[in-house]
């Protein structure tokens, strides 16, 4: 049996803190359902349903790690933790992984409801779940990257908008759905695009991406992103003066 409380690792601390704030927990669990399920049950075009789910996942991911990190940086507690013998890269990896898992835990109930409302081939359901998970990894990496430049949760929102807007555009949520040339290359480098394709397939649309591609390419891209943000750890955890 996994013993989480009292916590003996940073990720356990985050899990305990996540479940200890009951009101916040209810809000966190309810808001994805409130946003996603009515849209999924509506008669709007499937590409927009996929886009709404994708945007909720991206926002949840970016603010997950970004908000946690900047709040802890502001309090000074993360600085204190960084002066323990735990390697800073490991701390950042724990921040990233625990936030991805907790964000996925938040999104899983509405996603299950979506799959019940829109029965789809199991391979596409699995691909969509994996695509959402990888989107959360990428979005949390972006949140951690932003936390390198600010210790204000409000600034995370500001900077995230500037970074996410072009990425969402490139991913083809609303525009750039049939890209060519450089836009096609750029789209293939953004993990959000694979999630979007998998979700569109779940909603019965024909997509050019194969389920295998949804599993392989985001894994490679997100691994590079995760390694990249972990390497920023010494800077991220240094005093902000």
């Amino acid at each position, binding site marked *: 049996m996994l013993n989480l409380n009292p916590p003996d690792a940073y990720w356990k*601390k985050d899990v305990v803190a996540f479940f200890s704030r009951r009101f916040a927990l209810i809000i966190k669990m309810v808001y994805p359902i409130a946003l996603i399920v009515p849209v999924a049950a509506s008669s709007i075009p499937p590409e927009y349903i996929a886009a709404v789910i994708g945007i909720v996942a991206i926002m949840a991911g970016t603010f997950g790690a970004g908000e946690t990190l900047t709040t802890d940086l502001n309090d000074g507690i993360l600085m204190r933790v960084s002066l323990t*013998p735990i390697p800073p890269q490991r701390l950042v990896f724990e921040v990233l992984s625990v936030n991805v898992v907790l964000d996925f835990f938040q999104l899983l109930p509405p996603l299950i409801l979506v799959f019940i409302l829109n029965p789809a081939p199991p391979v596409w359901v699995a691909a969509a779940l994996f695509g959402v998970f990888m989107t959360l990894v990428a979005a949390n990496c972006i949140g951690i990257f932003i936390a390198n430049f600010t210790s204000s949760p409000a600034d995370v929102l500001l900077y995230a908008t500037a970074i996410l807007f072009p990425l969402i555009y490139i991913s083809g949520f609303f525009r750039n759905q049939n890209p060519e040339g450089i836009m096609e290359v750029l789209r293939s480098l953004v993990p959000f695009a694979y999630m979007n394709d998998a979700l569109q397939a779940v909603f019965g649309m024909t997509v050019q991406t194969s389920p295998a591609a949804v599993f392989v390419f985001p894994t490679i891209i997100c691994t590079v992103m995760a390694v990249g943000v972990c390497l920023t750890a010494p800077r991220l955890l240094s005093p902000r003066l």
Partner: protein
Amino acid sequence: MEGALERAAALEVEKVSLLYKGSGRGIQDISFRVGAGEIFGLMGPNGSGKSTLLRVLSTAMAPDSGSFKVGGHDGLREKRAVRARMGLMVDRPTHYGDLSGWANAYFFARSYGVEKKKAGGILTELFEYFDLSEYKDDRVKTYSYGMGKKLALVEAIAHGPGFLVLDEPSLGLDYTSQLAYQRKIRDLAASGVSILLASNQVDEVEALCDRVAFLHRGRVLSEGTPQELVSSISGVKRIVATLRNPVEYGAVERVSGVDRVVPEGSDLVVHCQDRAGIVEDVVAGFVASGGDITELSVRQPNLEDVYVKLTGEALNNAKP
């Protein structure tokens, strides 16, 4: 007390400098050593470089030049080894407010490598020692400032560090807790733990520290035992006046022989030369300022007087 310099060095600081790019302030050419089991005090007012020095020694920031060793480990190249041997209490301790005091302390103990089996016993003992047992399951956000300080002390010493860095540890502690803390510090030093104590609480430093260094504008101004430093100044008096009402004390500052007037709580402390008639002149200064003296005492000089004598500035640079 055995000669501090004869002890094995737990901390060796060699010509450490760090200047902030924007302000040009920081620390310059700081060198000193702390022996095993020694309590070394670091005193200096705001802006003297104390916090910057502690940031460097706690491995939070790398200096521009110079080096330091903790227990023989290079503080710049062997950060993890240094951090593992160091206990750290920052001046404004922060915790995870949504977790209990026990969960916070357990998290830090395990982060420092305390074994799971031992952590519970060690923390139980420390929570009892600092009277926190009753509150151990309460969320830290419900703790008072003093309780937070005591929890930070527990977190700093639970892993049995060989070297302890304490920044203003007793500020905010009640009298009983201060006694408990001072007893613990003495016990730790007696068991061989070296302690760097940054504090401007003169009584605390005089009571605990084997040696003291004064920091002034980023440099070590003077270093020695409290007795050596106090006896180095002669012809100095310290007049402490308690006034019924706060007054502008410019007239007192203008009295011949007065070096500095410093407010300390409801008291005004006059650092002055020991000349005939100066007490009478100082009292006249207060009366001229409209002050109603309710209590007056003339005391022996202490470390604060030494600092004022050396720099012309007060350690606690508060204004009335």
